[in-house]
């Protein structure tokens, strides 16, 4: 009997060891399985060099960080410059190769901001969101002239384009925009090219009918959608700006100022824009 008691006890301890040790080790090891993150990229300003560079940094962080399993663009922007928008759009395309991207329109996704929307896998908006304004806007170059005190090496060095060529290049950029819409929306796009390129802004509910967005929904639903696409659950939502260590943005230097210091709707610098400019009249 005495012989059997230690033996049994040893057996019990042996079994406990077999269970507890691996269990504890398993629990500790499982902590290495990190909670997946749905990263947020806020697009809440005009898209220009500063904001575009911030977005590109966040997109690269999301692509390279395995914990970030999906990205949600939270958009409230009138658009921005053509080249900066295109840069962000192409970075998003690279991200989408490995992780799903969902766009949710808060106040407005106009022009270049909608360009980014169609650069995502799924687009949501509120019924009252403003969506669209697809097209290009630019300032016609001046008629070339020469100055006594300025020398340049070509007739268009100072002006960039002949007037008529400028018009046609706008048209080429417009075609690129339309191709982006077609590529992003595919068969879901129900509106004709003429309607899409009319430059209109639609309410979210109208945009849904036209196939410009996929669903009416909120940010939370967008996070869930992104998580669902990434096949994750019990995820965390984190701002990629913080994760990537990007400081808070300074006051926007994109728009011009009136004499009283109030911002205008017009960009500070002449250029070619994917931009919604309300109340253009009187601000020229």
């Amino acid at each position, binding site marked *: 009997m005495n012989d059997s008691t230690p033996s049994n006890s040893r057996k019990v301890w*042996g*079994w406990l060891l*077999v*269970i*507890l*040790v*691996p*269990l504890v*080790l*398993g*629990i500790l*090891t*499982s*902590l290495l*399985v990190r*909670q*997946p993150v749905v990263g947020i990229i806020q697009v809440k300003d005009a898209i220009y060099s500063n904001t575009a560079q911030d977005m590109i940094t966040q997109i690269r962080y999301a692509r390279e960080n395995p914990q970030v*399993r*999906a990205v949600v663009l939270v958009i409230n922007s009138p658009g921005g410059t053509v080249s900066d928008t295109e840069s962000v*759009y*192409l970075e998003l*395309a690279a991200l*989408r*190769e*490995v*992780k*799903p991207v969902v766009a949710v329109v808060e106040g407005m996704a106009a022009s270049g901001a909608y360009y980014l929307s169609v*650069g995502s896998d799924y687009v949501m908006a509120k019924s009252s969101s403003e969506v669209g304004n697809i097209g290009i806007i630019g300032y016609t170059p001046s*008629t070339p002239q020469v100055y006594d005190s300025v020398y340049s090496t070509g007739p268009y060095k100072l002006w960039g384009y*002949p*007037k*008529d*060529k400028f*018009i*046609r*290049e*706008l*048209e*080429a950029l417009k*075609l*690129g925009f339309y*191709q*982006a819409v077609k*590529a*992003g929306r*595919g068969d879901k796009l129900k509106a004709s090219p*003429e309607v899409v*390129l*009319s430059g209109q802004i639609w309410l979210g509910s109208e945009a849904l009918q036209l196939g410009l967005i996929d669903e009416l929904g909120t940010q939370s639903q967008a996070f869930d959608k992104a998580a669902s*696409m*990434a*096949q*994750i*659950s*019990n*995820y965390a939502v984190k701002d990629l700006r913080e994760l990537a260590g990007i400081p808070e943005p300074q006051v926007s230097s994109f728009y011009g100022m009136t004499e009283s210091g109030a911002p205008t709707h017009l960009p500070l610098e002449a250029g070619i824009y994917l931009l919604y400019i309300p109340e253009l*009249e*009187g601000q*020229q």
Partner: protein
Amino acid sequence: MKILTRTVVPTGTVVLKIILVFAFFLAPIAGRTLWYYRGVYQRVDAVSVPDYKSIQAPVPALSTSAPLRSEKLTRQQVVVFDMAHSSVYSLSEIQPLTSAIADLGARTEINNEYPSSYRQLRYADALVIIAPSYAFMTYELQAINEFVKRGGRLLVIADPTRVYNGSYYDPSYFTMSSTDIVNALLAPYDINMMDDYAYNVVENEGNFRNVILTDLGNTPLSDGISRVVLYAAHSFKSGNQVILRAGENTFSSLNDQGESLAMGALDASANVLALGDMTFMTSPFYQVADNHHFVQNIASFLTSGIRQLDLGNYPYLFSRPVTILTQSEKTASPEFVAALAKAQQGLKYINIPLHVASQPTEGDDLLVFALFEQNEQVKDYISEFKLEFSITPKPDSSGSDFGGGYLDPTPTGVVTPTPYDDPFSLTPTPTPYFYDGGYDSYGGGVSTNKDTVTVPGFGKLPADRIGLLLYVPGDVRNTLVMMAYDASSLSQLADLLTSGELGGSCTVQNNLAVCNVFSSSSGGYGY
């Protein structure tokens, strides 16, 4: 042996333990993993982006060069550009049009006077008004309307891209929009311009607002051209000829609809051309499609009007060199020479050469000086005015010819040699006047002369207090007859040629003007 016994562990138990170790080790890992992850994200389809390399800027395949114009005008015509109403353009912008006008031999002038009397319209052949910002006064509109009625050509253009942005501190703050202003001009011609722009998103010239037009109507303006491109244009409503009509896919920004929108129109007389765009005639857009040729056709339109001159054009009544008829046998009196000099000075001022001849010169216009008593001799020129002359015959003048010379109305028989040694020149001597009315408004004094001229519409007028301007326009010759009672009053009439104004001195009715003059015989005082 005991040791041996203890080392022999049943195989099944060991395997079980190993399994349990792995199971308990993996369970939390698997649980946590499954808690977070339901699968592995794999794209179903490839990410699609635009094929940027394949996108080409559209190139206009429409450009044609316009041929150089060889036609020349038979006389130098004048096209006036109105810049008085704060027009939102400069002449240098529309150099293709001004060059085309110059190529045709016409001259361009600018009207900067605001409000404008449009004095230039007395001799101009065409008036061009583009993108005005200041409203036209009623009398300006009347002057323009009269000009068009007399055959002057009018080109009115408004452009949706040419809007003047006034401010409170700007004098134009209270001006109307450009379309409102031009519609006031175009209202008499049944043309109304919409405050819109036309667009075509299906077929255009590089941009939705650059509308291609192929229905150009059937007028001289469409000669030799098949396609015009307008760069943002107003549309029109017109009950007359439409010269630029858009296709079914061109819409108005007012309602996003359009049924064959008109972007250019001619009035019923084909003297008023209205266009909704001026950009097409600026560089570089005039080089697209047949725009350059169209601009040349517009220049031809502006210089091909047939002006119907009347006394409203005074003193620009002549469109050819002027011959003044004189009597070959007689030399003019000093008064006649003075009148001739004044006439020459007046016509020189308006670039009309004048020469004196005894017979009308073919191809010339005619200026005739005549005394009332010579009415029989000029009846061929003045018969249409149905004048009745009651002039006391002057014996010494009965045999004189009409024309640049005249006979003294008061035959004193005194022959006064002139510096030109004219043995027939007579010094006028006042004669008593017994006009019925005693006091009359012509000259203000009391006339003692009974001679009268009855002018339809004016009644019986004292001959020594009036002068008549009688204008007979014609296809081959314009004739102006200046008639008065005597030498001094005829000289006063010639003054009007120099002053260039009839208003204040004359009452004009169609091609007849009754002017207030006084003869040396009438006493009292004149104008």
